[in-house]
């Protein structure tokens, strides 16, 4: 087990390296440069100024050299200064904004799991009856409709028609409700779908019939015998999902004006903020890989049949 975890952690290094290389290649292989004027149609900088700036940011060196410098600094979590926010380092920006995104993501994730499980179980135990249809429709809408569209509908419903929550902002718990729900609906639908399918399979299994046959109550059968086994395939979903809730959040952050990493993420891309892009991509990538690892390890705890 420990051996397996260490091996997987070591695999993280080449994966991140490859991601850095791919991102770096795309950034530099495409036309355009961070020295281009930000505003459209503005006068370009004089050649001397461009040269000085390139020198200052190390953009005049050959590409492999630049990549080498980047790697060496990244090892010490030094991503340099942001090209767009010139007075702030990339590490600073990430350290202040990532926790906010993570907090929002965690709330949405928790809601998605709890809600998804609830609806999935309800759907399976009342198959082809009222609750089933409610869950399945909710799940379909959540999965199919993009979250920025859901956000529009939720704002209209719960800010304008019934003025319960503010349309945006951060700081008070009332601000958290709408972005969390918006972000949670998609993954909640996925969890509900999987739970339903998995529960339906388990409910028909022999051991469930045995549990019923020996006279257990419905509650014990569903929660102690069925759900425990139905949960196993759902766990695989959760790792990538947790990471996806983090990435997907940036539309939601834009609409609800949440001061998370999402805002910087978009601005860095359009402003060709090389250091920021690299840092954001790698942060997300590392996060995704770590979450997958956590899930794979958790798998072994939940399902004792799995050996590493």
């Amino acid at each position, binding site marked *: 087990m420990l051996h397996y975890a260490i091996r997987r952690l070591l695999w993280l290094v080449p994966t991140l390296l490859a991601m850095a290389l791919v991102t770096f290649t795309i950034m530099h292989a495409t036309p355009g440069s961070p020295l281009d004027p930000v505003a459209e149609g503005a006068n370009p900088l004089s050649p001397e100024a461009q040269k000085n700036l390139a020198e200052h940011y190390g953009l005049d060196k050959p590409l492999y050299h630049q990549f080498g410098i980047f790697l060496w600094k990244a090892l010490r979590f030094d991503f340099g200064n942001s090209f767009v926010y010139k007075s702030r380092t990339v590490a600073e920006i990430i350290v202040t904004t990532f926790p906010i995104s993570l907090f929002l993501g965690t709330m949405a994730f928790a809601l998605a799991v709890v809600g998804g499980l609830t609806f999935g179980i309800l759907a399976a135990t009342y198959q082809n009856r009222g609750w089933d249809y409610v869950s399945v429709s909710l799940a*379909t809408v959540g999965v199919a409709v*993009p979250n920025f569209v859901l956000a529009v509908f939720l704002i209209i419903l719960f800010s304008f028609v019934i003025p319960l929550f503010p349309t945006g902002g951060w700081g008070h718990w009332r601000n958290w409700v709408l972005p969390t729900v918006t972000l949670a609906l998609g993954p909640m639908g996925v969890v509900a779908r999987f739970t339903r399918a998995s529960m339906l399979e388990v409910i028909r299994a022999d051991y469930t019939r045995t549990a019923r046959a020996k006279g257990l109550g419905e509650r014990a059968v569903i929660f102690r015998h069925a759900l425990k086994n139905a949960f196993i395939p759902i766990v695989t979903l959760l790792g990538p999902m947790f990471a996806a809730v983090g990435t997907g959040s940036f539309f939601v952050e834009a609409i609800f004006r949440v001061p998370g990493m999402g805002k910087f993420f978009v601005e860095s891309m359009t402003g*060709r903020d090389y250091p920021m892009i690299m840092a954001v991509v790698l942060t997300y990538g590392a996060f995704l890989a770590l979450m997958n690892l956590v899930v794979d390890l958790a798998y072994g705890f939940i399902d004792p049949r799995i050996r590493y």
Partner: protein
Amino acid sequence: MASVSPTAASAVRLGAAPREKGTSLTRDALRRLRRNRLAMAGLLVVLFLALLAIFADVLAPYPYTKTNFSRLNEGPSRDYPLGTDLIGRDLLSRMIYGARVSMLVGLGAQIIVVSIGVPIGALSGYVGGRTDLLLTRFIDVMYAFPRLLFVILVMSMLGAGLMNIFIAIGLTGWVGIARQTRAQVLAIKEKEFVDGARAIGAGFTRLLGRHVLPNALTPIVVVVTFGIPEAIFTEAALSFIGVGINPPTPSWGQMVGEGQQYLRSYWHLCVFPSIAIAVTMLAFTFFGDGVRDALDPKQN
């Protein structure tokens, strides 16, 4: 899913068991698809959108760039059924042209995705050995990227535009199809009929093209069916943050992105395109679910 009621499902299964002469697997699947009411409703919406996209020039009451500065941000009226936007353009006309963008992206991107993903997956699975190892490693790395992040990265580097959207989705989308194709090819190439074909002297191209790939098609079709709404979503998302379609070409995502800033004062700017996106995504999802259930009745 509840898209097929249990009685209908069992009826289909019973009907399929003693398969009468002349009912091919495809026809069988088509019949199952036709009986699925939700899927058919989805298909109707999709066809409607396709018609809108094709005949946009005839159907739209105004050109999508025509501005009327005396009537800005108006709500729905007789002249402008869905109202006008920030610079007095007819919203309905822009939405009709928006359907064209969505449909183009949905289909075009899938063509690119398939033409990259299927050959790579097939090659990887069929040839095996070092080629397979190399390709799967590459696929794994690509898989580790958060998908949307990668698309946005490529788009902001290439710049906005329809062609670049195809490239961005193509570059990232092939991975799923390649994985699926590889898994299928791996399983099928061990089957007896492939051995048989090889025994009578079928060459590499013929084996792969005539015997292995056609039998691997079903799951690929399913992935493609779900890939279309995924691509439409991606375009909408890209245009929403302003790195998708170039203005003044209308795109639903861009209209939502622009309109949501004025949601309180001019609700119509944002609500109509939002509904369009939601309905389109749902229609494709229902149809996709139907196709999957029809092709693989065991799953239900």
